[in-house]
């Protein structure tokens, strides 16, 4: 291929770096997500550890060239293990003035900015809301700006190509940028070229244009004076051996659900109603018909939850997924599931609220609703993934709890976990602990009639599915008589059943809370859900600088690990960063009467390692 004949050992000086953060930014139409994910694959294959985060525009389609229409993709890769997609980039690729304007505020002095010079026309500059061209007026003085006429370079590269229109060329400029950045960090070109060839096999001229653009970008890096150093980031060494794949939280969630379905032998049925950001899970699972997965787009979230519950009654793994307002609407059905004591998974991909709020921004503010947002005493288990890859284990665990305890379980994911990605060490399917549905099948006898609400030692009730001879029975939302499950208006029975439902959930087997870092420090940083990476990164910085701090992370929000109180009491101070106004802190304070200090942020962005570092330093 083209670059092979180019001198592999480029004349330019090469610099080693431990970690790098690159951000591709352009108009929604510029294909930045594609450039970013291709770069990610090449990087993964190279063996760097990495984490990525796409940043979509809030508007469905803001006018082209406006700040509202900017789409970006950030990748953080390193020679050692990575915890977050990074706070601010070392290199920003800005395909147009709007992309520059949208990202400038977050940049630190000295950041390298690669701009597509051709896009900085008078009209383009105006559309972005600049009075004068920022390339001219010294706005960029604090940064290292590389002006690259990408559009024209691509035009030139495809000149005279069979059937390639100038529009094809236009659309290919993201691959030029990709090629350039790929050279800059010496990424393997084969991975990308193979992908281009596969992707556009059916459209040869598009394939050609894209390949040409990609190679032009690479050669530009190699040859132009503009960029004088090539940066090398060695493969990560501290990575566990194994086969890896890059996944975002949505994919990991889908895979975890399919895995739980296969390992439990329960067919998977998803009832969902589209909503940002949860829709992606519906789309993802809809593709797995070949694995027997059934998805139903319901008329609304009430129906979506009811469809999942109806399927559960039929002996399937009933799942429903949603975000924000959708959770509100599922409330009543979830309450019915609590009363019916049937397995059911509710996946809440949290977004910024209240009400419609900020649909494309992340938040962790549905925790109290998940725990308490139903009328009456209606307890259920709640778990939360700590990273994209962890979503696989989390939903698998949620399915295990739901199935063996016969209870709805809420999984609190969020937009950040769902969209960001990281390498995932592939488990061996057969190594996944099988989940036993243990359907009741043996018919009852005269002396032992079937009691749908008799309980096993886990306090779980029998699950007898329609079609099983001799076990016909009726269940419903009215209070049940202990054991027989008949309707009961008896006060003492209601007390007993209320206590039993609570005891069952409180008794779910949950691993102890593990503390790492300086276990004997006086400050504990406790986190939950998607803030795990930022917290650990912040803690790492503090400890590398010699600070002493302990860190722990809650995967189970209900019930809490048995040793939680004991752990909290071990420390003089407990800091709890969360993307809400202090919801988990409330829960822990009530439970353990420990003065947990929340550090809260609701700005639609994930927590940053730097914030955590600062908050810790303020306290040690």
């Amino acid at each position: 291929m083209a670059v092979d004949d180019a001198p592999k050992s480029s004349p330019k000086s090469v610099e080693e770096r431990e970690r790098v953060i690159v951000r591709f930014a352009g108009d929604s139409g510029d294909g930045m997500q594609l450039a970013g994910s291709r770069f990610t694959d090449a990087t993964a294959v190279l063996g760097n550890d990495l984490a990525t985060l796409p940043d979509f525009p809030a508007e469905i389609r803001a006018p082209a060239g406006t700040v509202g229409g900017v789409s970006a993709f950030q990748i953080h890769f390193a020679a050692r293990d990575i915890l977050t997609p990074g706070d601010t980039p070392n290199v920003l690729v800005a395909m147009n003035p709007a992309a520059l304007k949208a990202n400038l505020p977050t940049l630190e002095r000295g950041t390298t900015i690669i701009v597509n010079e051709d896009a900085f026309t008078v009209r383009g500059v105006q559309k972005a809301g600049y009075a004068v061209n920022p390339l001219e007026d010294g706005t960029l003085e604090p940064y290292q700006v590389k002006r690259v006429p990408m559009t024209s370079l691509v035009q030139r590269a495809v000149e005279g190509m069979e059937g390639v229109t100038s529009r094809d060329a236009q659309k290919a400029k993201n691959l030029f940028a990709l090629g350039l950045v790929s050279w800059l960090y010496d990424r393997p070109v084969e991975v990308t070229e193979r992908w281009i060839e596969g992707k556009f096999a059916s459209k040869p001229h598009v394939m050609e244009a894209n390949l040409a653009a990609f190679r032009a970008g690479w050669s530009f890096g190699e040859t132009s004076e503009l960029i004088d150093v090539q940066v090398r980031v060695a493969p990560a060494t501290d990575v566990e051996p194994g086969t890896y794949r890059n996944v975002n939280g949505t994919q990991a969630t889908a895979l975890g659900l399919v895995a739980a379905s296969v390992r439990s032998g329960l067919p998977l049925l998803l009832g969902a109603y589209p909503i940002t950001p949860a829709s992606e899970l519906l789309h993802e699972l809809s593709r797995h018909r070949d694995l027997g997965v059934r998805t139903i787009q319901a008329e609304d979230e009430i129906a979506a939850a009811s469809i999942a519950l109806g399927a559960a009654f039929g002996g399937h793994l009933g799942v429903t997924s949603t975000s924000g307002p959708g959770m509100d609407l599922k409330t009543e059905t979830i309450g019915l599931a609590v009363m019916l004591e049937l397995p059911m998974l509710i996946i809440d991909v949290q977004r910024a609220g209240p009400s419609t709020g900020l649909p494309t921004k992340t938040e962790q503010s549905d925790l109290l609703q998940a725990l308490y947002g139903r009328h009456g005493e209606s307890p259920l288990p709640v778990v939360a993934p700590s990273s994209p890859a962890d979503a696989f284990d989390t939903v698998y665990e949620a399915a295990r709890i739901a199935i063996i305890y016969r209870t709805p379980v809420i999984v609190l994911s969020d937009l950040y976990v769902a969209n960001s990605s990281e390498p995932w060490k592939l488990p061996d399917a057969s190594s996944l602990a099988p989940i036993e549905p243990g359907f009741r099948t043996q018919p009852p006898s005269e002396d032992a009639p079937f009691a749908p609400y008799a309980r096993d030692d886990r306090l779980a009730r029998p699950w007898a599915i329609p079609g099983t001879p001799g076990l016909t029975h009726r269940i419903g939302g009215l209070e049940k008589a202990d054991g027989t499950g008949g309707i009961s208006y008896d006060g003492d029975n209601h007390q007993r059943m209320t206590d039993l439902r609570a005891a069952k959930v409180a008794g779910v087997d949950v691993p102890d809370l593990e503390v790492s870092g300086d276990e004997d420090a006086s400050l504990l940083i406790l986190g939950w859900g998607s803030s795990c990476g930022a917290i650990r990164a912040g803690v790492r910085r503090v400890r590398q600088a010699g600070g002493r701090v302990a860190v722990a992370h809650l995967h189970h929000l209900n019930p809490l690990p048995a040793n939680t109180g004991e752990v909290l009491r071990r420390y003089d101070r407990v800091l709890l960063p969360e993307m809400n106004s202090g919801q988990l802190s409330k829960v822990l304070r009530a439970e353990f009467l420990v003065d947990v200090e929340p550090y809260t942020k609701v700005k639609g962005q994930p927590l940053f390692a730097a914030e955590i570092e600062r908050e810790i330093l303020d306290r040690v």
Partner: protein
Amino acid sequence: MSDHVTSPRATSLRDAAGQTTFTKADFQSDQETRWCPGCGDYAILSAVQGVFPELGIAPENVVFVTGIGCAGRFSYYMDTYGMHGIHGRGPALATGLAAARDDLSIWIVSGDGDALSIGGNHLIHALRRNVPVKILLFNNQIYGLTKGQASPTSELGKITKSTPFGSIDGPFNPVSLALGAEASFVARTVDTDKQHLPAMLRAAAAHEGTALIEIYQNCPVFNDGAFDALRDKRQSGINAIRLEHGQPIAFGVEGAERGVVRDPGTGGVRVVDVADVGRENLLVHDAHTEDPSLAFALSRLSSVPTGPTPIGIFRSVQRPVSGRELGAELGANRAAVGTERLDALLHTGDTWTIA
């Protein structure tokens, strides 16, 4: 009427062919019925329990899904699998169950408030999708369980606890609504009609997609007599327009003095004296035509049944049943899925190995 409902569980019999056959008692649960004395629900329950043995479906392969209301209690009295769900969500719960289990006979029992007020959206979507379930809509034109408020089928001006000065809203015509929602099977019958109700149940059971039966059901406590025009032996002769596919639409005490013809003026249909038009000019009912327009026109003959009112099957056509083929396909796929397939799935896309 409730006597038999608690009759002891009989054990099913084997017929000559060694085929298991079932008795009415096989479908009667031991739960004591809790409806008011004289409630039309008793008659419906008895009819349903009476028809099931004919269908030859084992009780364990039958599921009754109900919403909340007096009608909603129905599931407790059938010795089948049953789910007494939440108000109005029966069709949604049943849609999930039907998608999961195409081997079951799924029946929904709902009231006029449950199905048409809070549950209206699920009802029309189940009909649109043609989900394989049977829906029995007990229409008593009132909220029974909550003790007498207006329902979406209560007539304009009705005085109830929630409308002390008379309801200011007109009613739905459930048959018209269902037809507007693309229903593939719509019928209407009367709680106490010992021939007609079972006939409708059999037809619904035989239908492939969603089958909706509106059952006029008397609520002696909060809306007594609402259906006397059809329930009362003397009046029903005059008022019951019995629709039969392929038959000219005629009715009356002797069964034929009056009939239905098209009304060029309105584009609808109207009732005439057969004497005036001649029997040969009566409209011939066609329940199987693709176009629901005729069924719709017939549904407009009455909205509240105080005069001549059609009962029987308005429409019964075949159209794709939601998930019918898909179910089979998925089942086959599942059978094939083991850890190997799962491993393959996990490994899709670009992977890399670190030694």
